[in-house]
């Protein structure tokens, strides 16, 4: 896997009347890698997708592919001339064309036989061969999804963009389609960018993550990095539940209501970010009050309180009784930030 990026976004910006949708966003996509753009709705991630695809011009910054500028102050390459595939949240299949024609839509310039061959291969890859002659409205949601991706891949684009690809699907189907799509994408050399607001999905799929909020990229890195070493509490929140408790650093040690841990911060006030798994009930440690416990399947979700601070944790055993108890912090999974 080469890490040389095929697509680079540098300092991109976009505003709509008074609302700043994107503010100084930089990102790079590498071939054969899946990058997930994660953020709450309205954070600008879809706007970024539209800018990359060329559906809208950028107000500031540059987007370049393989060294050639796509969007910049100097000009704007229209979407049909960018080597970029796009899969919409609503799939946007053409209702007047059957599955084969939908997938073959972007490769009309190829000879008939070659086109048929490529379409057949794609349908095979996404397990759609049996629906080749079906009309879009007769397909299930998962099938529509795969047709949309196959269609976008037919042109063998250098970059493939997927906008909330699984949000229209639910439960088991979602997991299954995701697996099938990942299988299908495994064979492509395209740089894949997936926009999602589901942290679990993002971490499951991504080779690289970009966390967005309020039009800015907060952090980019591997899922493990982003999860374990968030650059800010904001960034941390994007990847799942966190508890934040006040801390005081003195001489390389942070004192918190749930115990102390080493800190390489200067003396003063700080905040401790705790993932649920960073805190564990113990026989001894920091004294806390268990204020709530709820069975969540294989684990219990427990809320603990100490010195006016609350945190949640996941406990693998049965639910402990409400009342007094002790917790211990796993320093590797907790993170301190300076300031209050």
């Amino acid at each position, binding site marked *: 896997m080469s890490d040389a990026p095929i697509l680079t976004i540098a300092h991109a910006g976009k505003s709509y009347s008074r609302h700043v949708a994107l503010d100084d966003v930089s990102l790079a996509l590498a071939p054969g890698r899946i990058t997930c753009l994660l953020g709450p709705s309205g954070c600008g991630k879809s706007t970024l997708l539209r800018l990359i*695809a060329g559906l809208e011009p950028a107000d500031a910054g540059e987007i370049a592919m393989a060294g050639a500028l796509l969007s910049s102050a100097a000009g704007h390459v229209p979407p049909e001339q960018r080597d970029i595939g796009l899969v919409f949240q*609503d799939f946007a299949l053409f209702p007047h064309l059957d599955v084969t024609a939908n997938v073959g839509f972007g490769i009309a310039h190829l000879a008939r036989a070659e086109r048929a061959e490529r379409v057949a291969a794609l349908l095979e890859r996404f397990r759609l061969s049996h629906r080749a002659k079906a009309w879009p409205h007769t397909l299930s949601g998962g099938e529509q999804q795969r047709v949309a991706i196959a269609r976008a891949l037919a*042109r063998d684009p250098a970059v493939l963009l997927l906008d909330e690809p699984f949000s229209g699907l639910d439960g088991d189907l979602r997991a299954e389609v995701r697996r099938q799509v990942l299988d299908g994408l495994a064979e492509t050399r395209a740089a894949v960018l997936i926009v999602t607001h589901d942290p679990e999905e993002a971490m499951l799929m991504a080779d690289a993550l970009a966390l967005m909020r309020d039009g800015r990229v907060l952090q980019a890195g591997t899922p493990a990095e982003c999860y374990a070493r968030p650059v800010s509490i904001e960034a941390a929140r994007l990847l799942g539940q966190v508890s934040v408790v006040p801390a005081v650093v003195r001489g390389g040690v942070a004192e918190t209501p749930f115990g102390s841990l080493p800190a390489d911060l200067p003396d003063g006030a700080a905040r401790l970010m705790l993932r649920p798994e960073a805190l564990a009930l113990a026989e001894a440690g920091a004294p806390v009050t268990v204020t709530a416990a709820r069975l969540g399947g294989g684990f219990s979700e427990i809320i603990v309180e100490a010195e006016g601070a609350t945190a949640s944790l996941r406990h693998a055993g049965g639910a402990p009784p409400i009342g007094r108890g002790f917790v211990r912090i796993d320093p590797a999974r907790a993170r301190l930030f300076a300031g209050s």
Partner: protein
Amino acid sequence: MLAAIAAALPLAGIVAAAFSGATADIAAADVGRYALTSAGLALLVGVITAIAGTLAAWLVVMHRFPGRDIFAWALALPLAAPAFALAYAYGDLFDVAGGLRIWMRGTLGFDMPFEMRTISGAAFVLSCAFYPYVYLAMRAAFLNQSVTALEAARTLGCSQRRAFLRAALPLARPALAAGAALAIMETLADYGAVQFLSVQTLTTGVVRAWSVYGSTASAAQFALPLLGAAALLLWIERAGRRGRGYEANRARWRELPVTRLTGVKAVLAVTFCLLLLTLGLLLPCFWLAWNGLNVSPDWVRLFDAAEHSLILSVAGAAITVALATALALGAAKLPLAARVASLGYATPGAVMAIGLLAPAALIWRIVPGATGFAVAIGLLLYAYAARLMAAALEPVDAGLAKVTPNMIWASRSLGRGPVSTAWHVQLPIARGALLTAGLLVFIDILKELPATLILRPFNFDTLAVIASNYALDERLEQAGWPSLLIIALALPAVIWLTRKIARSRPGAA
């Protein structure tokens, strides 16, 4: 963009004419009377078509009774009959000195308490001609209505009649507004029928200002309030279509709960449908044909004119739909232009003639030798497009609305430029709507009078022109034949249109 400008030119011509030249000495009281008559006529036609069209649509969609399958499409057939032909037929049939009423007075000992040549008579005739607009709109709305809403109403204790009044009707209100707006616009634009029935509307004012006082300025001024009214109606129509938009999003179709009518109810339903069909088409056709048998028409001239009508209608429909499509595709960028381009539809024919001469004059003066046949036909086709843009624009717009922005972007990201996208995605998806638009314009051009009268080339008559000439010469027997030919040419298009609507709900036909 160009299409919008082209369509708006005649309107600009009207406005320009309104503010130039001497004004006519028409008493304010007369102007007031004309305006009141126009308003009253429009209101009456609006109300009658709304009631008759809605009731008919409700009967055929939600009920089963003998002949219902035939009525379902036959009730739209009066769309094929020009309003002026109905006016000729009814004016003559119910004339105080006509055979029917002389017989009534002599044999039955009483007279009809109803005069055709009054506002109410004209409202009756125009309603017969225009109720299909409401019927078609309401039928489509009822066919596409949500069964759930009806069922909900029933479970909330509504009888079927109350469910209709409280759930179905309010849900179909946008369609009702749209259909009635079309009927009213046609009423305001009417050229031949009202004139023949000697009801003095604003059109009378236009003709009087122009042909007696020689003041096109005053004539055009009469059109300004009508243009305002047209703009308002178009806006209502638009609002109606917006409502239909989300109605169509229902995920699953279910069979509509139809009621089988028996006994007296069935007889009443059949009678009502038969009455509408008889009044709108059968009776006037019969009367025109019956009278026509008294004379031997000049068949060569009629077939010549029929050929002209047919060619103009086909070519005009193609061009109008092409322009409307261009306009609708560009409408996202300039919605105002699309609206303005639609105003020609409700502009009274006599005024439109003034407006049309403005762009024609440009061509005539700029292009050398432009008064030839080909240019005249070109101008005429252009005039149809300008006048009937609204009829094409609405269905085309609705058809193109089925293409989501994402489909367009998907096509673009798949390497197709805007033109290729329009050709391979937008137009195919909207093809049914394009055909509908084409047929509507086709029917309208067959019946069209004012633009044809003023712009046609030498030795070139259409059926509508011949009918109008005979009527002006008070030769109704002869006027019947071209009128009947118009109906015969338009009927297949109308039948096709209405059957298409029936297919719009799976299992409803």
